[in-house]
């Protein structure tokens, strides 16, 4: 237990450092400035890389058994969500702001003129991938717990 706590504290400390030290990165929803978007996109790339490597190792080592199908499904969904979100962030920068129909500062509608716009609209529904991925992660953990 002390080992877990020390790891937890280290992780928390790193997060606090990042929070305190980072300047206005404008990372996620509003990436003001190219630097903020680039760093965030690099984060997504690293996230995808880590998940892909994890998936590769699970397949390569032929790890099977209860819970592993669900875990692999979580990884696939998480990778797809990352790709979708990565695309959405990038498309956000080049999409025509005139396609957003606003009332004041509120976006009320979106004008889809081509497939690019349609895909962009889909990237804004990323939770449709994120929620199932967490669901499968939960299923995997529950199956592993029941194994004992």
């Amino acid at each position, binding site marked *: 237990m002390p080992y877990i706590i020390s790891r937890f504290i280290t992780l928390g400390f790193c997060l606090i450092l990042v929070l305190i030290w980072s300047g206005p990165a404008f990372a996620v929803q509003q990436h003001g400035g190219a630097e903020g978007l680039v760093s965030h996109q690099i984060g997504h790339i690293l996230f995808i890389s880590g998940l892909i490597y994890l998936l590769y190792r699970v397949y390569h080592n032929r790890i099977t058994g209860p819970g592993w199908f669900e875990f692999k499904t979580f990884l696939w969904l998480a990778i797809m969500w990352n790709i979708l979100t990565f695309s959405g962030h990038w498309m956000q920068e080049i999409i025509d702001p005139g396609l957003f129909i606003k009332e004041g500062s509120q976006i009320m*509608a979106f004008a889809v003129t081509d497939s690019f716009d349609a895909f962009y609209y889909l990237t804004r529904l990323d*939770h449709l991938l994120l929620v199932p991925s967490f669901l499968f992660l939960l299923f995997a953990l529950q199956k592993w717990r029941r194994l004992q």
Partner: protein
Amino acid sequence: MEETAVIISWTPVIVVDILGSVLTLCLAILCANSSWRWLKQKTDDIFRQYIFLLTLAIVFFAISRSFGHLIKQILLLNDMPGIWNQISPFSGAVNSAIFIIIFAFGIYFHRVQKVHEEIEKFRKNLESLVDERTTQLTETNQALQNEIAERVHIENELRQANITLENVLESSNPLCITGLDFEIIRANKAYREIWPLKSDHGDRKIKCFDSRPGYLCHTEECILQQILNGREEITIESAKHYFMGETKTFIISARPLKDATGNLIGIVESFQNITDRIEAETAKVELIDDLQEALDKVNLLSGLLPICASCKKIRDDKGYWNQIETYIRDHSEAEFSHGICPDCAQKLYPGLYKKIKK
């Protein structure tokens, strides 16, 4: 040609964003709880620790992102985009940092899996080794118990045999076991009451010729010597000196004592005291002689005796004529008392005889 635009409501985006964030938040908390409970079942399992930390990182990401999205929607719906502009960089920074952490966990998976598999393999080997050794120990223990039971049984039998031997030895005549070096190995109580077992030289065993000296000792007729020369059984009559100095006569029976492999290791001698019998025999012989002598005297009286026809004198072996009373008195235990028979009384004292008759 003008492009035709399809107007799609933005409400689904907002709804999916809010609901999705809430669901992601709930699911993330459930995942954290599930991984924690799984870890608690076996805290020393390295793989469980890894999955817990990975899940924790993913959950942190989900929580920070969900909070970020929810706060964003709330602020935008309340027409406060400026505040969101202030908050969003921090939210984004947290997510970026967690992306890096998840990446690190991802590439560490292989090493953790390897270590976990090796530990499991060692544990299984150890368990099977322990099972195997336990089985061996159980079998050895069982064999040992069987051996102990057998030894106890043998010891009991040996003890019983010793007790029987002791009873037999103590109930018999004096008996001793003498080694090939003439030392007395063992003797029963009857022997010890007659001859000493302690040597004059401290704790050394006493020699047989010191314990019960006899006229056969140090000769070729020595019983042990004869057994060593190959005789199987010897029974002799011999005189032995008692420890108090007197001499007694014994019938000594000796047999070789051999070990389990048939090698001669000594002799077993028993001593039957026949001194009383010898004395009785001697007394008997003397009595017989006396009786014979008496009988001789009795026979003289029963033979032909030369007797004078007139005076009734008897002639003895030397030729002398003796009065009959004298001869009978000398040749028997008889005595005479004199009287007168009626015929002689009438002849010698007629007057007195008539008076007595009247």
